[in-house]
């Protein structure tokens, strides 16, 4: 009986690399490794792991996690110039988790979870506490199977100060069944990955439907890694690139445990021009799809097809531009945003967010989530939303004011963006004075305010076909697609760096020094006065006046004094 049950538990691994040249000449590489396990990871039910990493599986089972999304990011995805990202994450560390309804104390589980994750990924996630955790009501819906979306089971936190480096990458790679020994993961060499404009690694765990009928649950672990290389400046002004140039490695085989291992190269013709670029070696197939409202063409290399490694031992995908492409006509994404701090002085300031809708004729709503730490005291009455010179009233507002040292501000709004418009959202704040122990090291660097999150269903220009999720490439299937006419986009704005009034931390020491010196000087003279012995000294020869007088007396013949 036991052996039969063991065999039934299927798990499969798919690995995928998407290489897309960006309009500015950079190249974005997005790795996705998906482990799907046809088992129910409920509390204690499963304890025998094969492809799914045990550390994460036990975490999900022990803490009643329904869905977990962790991203560690260095750099900022410039949506305006690079286009819509396949997967964006805010700078620093982002963690959002849906818990099972059976979890009674969500806050305790959340604290425990962030501590354990901080141990697994060597990140400072243990700094997640009530002062940076929020419970969004509308922005973060479960991406996997969910019955009921009671947002009290959701926790969301961002640590914008977190620096991502090799020590976070190594444990992330260790979770892959093949490690970095075989398959696409051999390209993940830390020294190249962190020599880039943008680096984001993520872990997504969620329950999904086992099959089309959706009678049973499977668990999915997606490990994604997106990196943007600046090939334009490192390649002497040429936009040509190859795998070896970017990763200083080439591919030699697929991970033997993977059931699918593919490399996609975005070769979509830009601006209706035909065939500007050429990829070598010739791809095994060409895949056409509508991705994020755009018709895209991909050259596909199937690492599991035996023909690929027939001619040469390794695969080094190369892309050459046939003639220099003029970069002046960059396509502007339909939705993008920008944020900055305004105002002057150290008392008050203003957070300004600009949201662009460049769609020529369609308006659409967007949900904006703003998390501001408590030490910036927001004045909600100063909130203004202006579109095309007129006030734009949000159709939904959820505002939770901060409590000092307890919880941050949470502002969620549903804003309608008219076609071809810019919406400016401003809100004023006052800077609080912190206690001296609350300042982080190097307080003059400033305090980070996490990115605000924009979630929207963007209307598509081209109708999308309904495709089977299991068959389509991984980079299209993280977010559930709604219908054919629109697609889901989640964008993050820049994190803000705000200066708070910072005291002179050496002042107490200076005061002590000064006071001590004064006391010491007083003490010194008093002591001198008390201990000095006074001698009466016999005048030996008298002063200058007396001698002068005697000289005169001598001259005058008068007796001396």
């Amino acid at each position: 009986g036991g052996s039969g049950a063991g065999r039934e538990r299927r798990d499969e691994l798919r690995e995928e690399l998407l290489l897309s040249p960006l309009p500015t000449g950079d190249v974005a590489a997005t790795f996705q490794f998906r482990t799907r396990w046809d088992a129910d990871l409920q509390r204690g039910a499963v304890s025998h792991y094969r492809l799914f990493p045990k550390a994460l599986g036990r975490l999900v089972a022990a803490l009643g996690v329904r869905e977990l999304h962790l991203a560690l990011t260095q750099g900022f995805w410039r949506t305006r110039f690079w286009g819509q990202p396949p997967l964006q994450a805010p700078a620093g560390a982002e963690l959002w988790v849906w818990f099972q309804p059976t979890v009674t104390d969500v806050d305790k589980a959340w604290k425990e979870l962030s501590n354990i994750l901080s141990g697994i990924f060597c990140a400072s996630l243990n700094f997640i506490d009530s002062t940076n955790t929020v419970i969004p009501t509308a922005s973060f819906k479960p991406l996997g199977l969910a019955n009921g979306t009671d947002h009290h089971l959701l926790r969301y936190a961002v640590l914008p100060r977190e620096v991502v480096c090799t020590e976070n990458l190594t444990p992330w790679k260790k979770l892959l069944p093949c490690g970095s020994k075989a398959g696409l993961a051999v390209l993940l060499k830390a020294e190249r990955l962190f020599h880039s404009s943008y680096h984001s690694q993520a872990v997504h765990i969620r329950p999904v439907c086992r099959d089309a009928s959706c009678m049973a649950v499977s668990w999915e672990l997606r490990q994604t890694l997106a990196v943007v290389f600046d090939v334009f400046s490192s390649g002497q002004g040429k936009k040509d690139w190859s795998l070896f140039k970017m990763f200083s490695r080439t591919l030699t085989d697929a991970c033997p445990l993977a059931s699918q291992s593919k490399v996609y190269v975005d070769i979509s013709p830009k601006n209706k021009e035909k065939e500007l670029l050429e990829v070598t070696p010739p791809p095994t197939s060409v895949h056409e799809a509508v991705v994020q409202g755009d018709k895209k063409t991909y050259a596909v290399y199937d690492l599991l097809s035996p023909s690929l490694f027939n001619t040469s031992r390794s695969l080094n995908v190369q892309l050459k531009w046939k003639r220099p492409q003029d970069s002046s006509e960059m396509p502007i994404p339909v939705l993008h945003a920008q944020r900055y701090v305004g105002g002057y002085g150290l008392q008050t300031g203003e957070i300004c967010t600009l949201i662009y809708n460049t769609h020529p004729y369609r308006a659409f709503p967007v949900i904006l989530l703003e998390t501001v730490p408590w030490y910036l005291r927001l004045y909600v009455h100063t909130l203004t939303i202006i579109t095309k010179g007129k006030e734009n009233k949000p159709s939904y507002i959820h505002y939770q004011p901060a409590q000092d040292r307890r919880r941050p501000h949470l502002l969620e709004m549903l804003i309608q963006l008219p076609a071809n418009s810019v919406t400016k959202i401003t809100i004023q704040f006052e800077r609080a004075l912190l206690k001296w122990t609350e300042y982080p090291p190097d307080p003059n660097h400033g305090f980070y305010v996490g990115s605000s999150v924009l979630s929207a269903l963007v209307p598509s220009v081209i109708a999308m076909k309904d495709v089977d999720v299991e068959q389509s490439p991984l980079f299209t299937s993280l977010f559930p697609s709604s219908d054919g006419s629109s697609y889901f986009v989640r964008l993050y704005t820049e994190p803000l760096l705000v200066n708070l009034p910072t005291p002179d931390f050496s002042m107490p020491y200076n005061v002590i020094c000064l006071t001590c010196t004064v006391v010491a000087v007083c003490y010194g003279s008093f002591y001198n006065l008390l201990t000095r012995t006074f001698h009466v000294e016999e005048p030996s020869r008298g002063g200058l006046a007396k001698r002068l007088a005697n000289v005169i007396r001598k001259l005058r013949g008068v007796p001396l004094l």
Partner: protein
Amino acid sequence: QVQLVVPVAVVFSPGSVPGDLPSPLPFRDVQEMEISVNLRTSVTSRYEMAYRGTTAQEEAALAAATAREADAALRPLQDVSMGSLTMYVVPETSSLLPQGTSVYVGRHRSALVRAGGSLAALHARLRQVTQVMSFTATSIAAALSDRVPDGRLSPDARRSLKSSLGYEITFSLLNPDPKSHAVDWDIEGAVNRYVKPVLDKLSLVANFSVDSQILYYAVLGVTPRYDKESSSFLLSAHSLPHVINPVEARLGSSAASLYPVLNFLLYVPERSHSPLYIQDKDGAPVSTNAFHSPRWGGIMVYNVEAPASPQASLPLHVDVDMARVMEVFLAQLRLLFGLSREELPPEFLLESPGNEGLADWELDHLLWAHTVENIATVSTTLTSLAQLLDKIGNIVIKDDVASEVYRAVASVQSAVAKLAMGHLHSAFQASKEAVTSSERAFFDPSLLHLLYFPDDQKFAIYIPLFLPMAVPILLSLAKIVRETRQRKKEPTKMD
């Protein structure tokens, strides 16, 4: 002082009563033994012997054909409380015990002992059996290994795991060469069949959780040596310590719990390194092809037979023979818990523990050792806390920490009292509570607040005050010294 009391019932079957009994049956007797661990610590063991004759039912049970049947038949007639033992003395000529054996230890808490003629000989034999079935001086010393002076403890005694409230057992299959070997193991079935009965029995001692994983591309840290004669690869005994470290990095810690982890690794060597054999210190291959690491776990090498035809397509499908593997791992598990069945005199016959893998008296053996160890741990923890408090006066002991300390002390006192009364099970429970409370007190995060504010820093802040104040004092001191010296030199000048 800790006193371990073992209630022993000695039951004489007809015809086995020695001639030189001090008084007519039934009567009671006490034997004491002192186990000294170091100069300051010693444990007294006290055997409360109750001598009596058999009842009619016991006589009927002892009339069984074999010792095993007698053991099973006697089971319902005994005192079943933990830690208590029953010895049945059978006549010298009894055919119940096989030829050459004089002691038969059953599966439960009883033994059959052949009468040895005189009372003194019987006493010696009884003492041996009771020690095997409860605790020996070495097992108590191993439990208190922290207090034993260095070098006095054999390496075997340092092997067993420290007492803990729970253990996690992880079975890992290491497949460094997934391209050539597709290894499958029915770990779930094997755990249910072989491991679970043992752990069910051990659940009195601690909580256990079992899980398993498969790790690919996990290699040993040592390159095995090729042996031409046998055309195989060899891992020598002295290289084994280097094997574990690189593997351990992949094993993954148990982030979700604080219990110690027992690792059992099954290593399927790469095709280019097969077959792989482990050599012992003398260079002979180890028959089980496995070794264990004290307080860590065990590793077994599982060789895959080369395919009959070299053209066989890769990867080769391998189904692991779990019975063979689990036999080795369970033996290692017993070793790690200090339940070795070696070092017994030849006239002892131990009944095999059967499917449960553990006899009742072996469980008692564990409980005795763990109770003593827990009591020692609590006293060490509380002493360290007290020493820490003496050293660093800044530590604030909150009320809840204080109450944990009181609770720990109360529990440990009750554990000691229960031990002196011979109630092993309740003593063990009390010692567990004491460990929990004392650890909670010692590791309370509130102890760490403002811990590090040393005196030299406080002094440094006041240097601007002390230094200028010291200058006139020192100068005048120097002046006084100079004056007195001058006065001594010219005493005549003074008048």
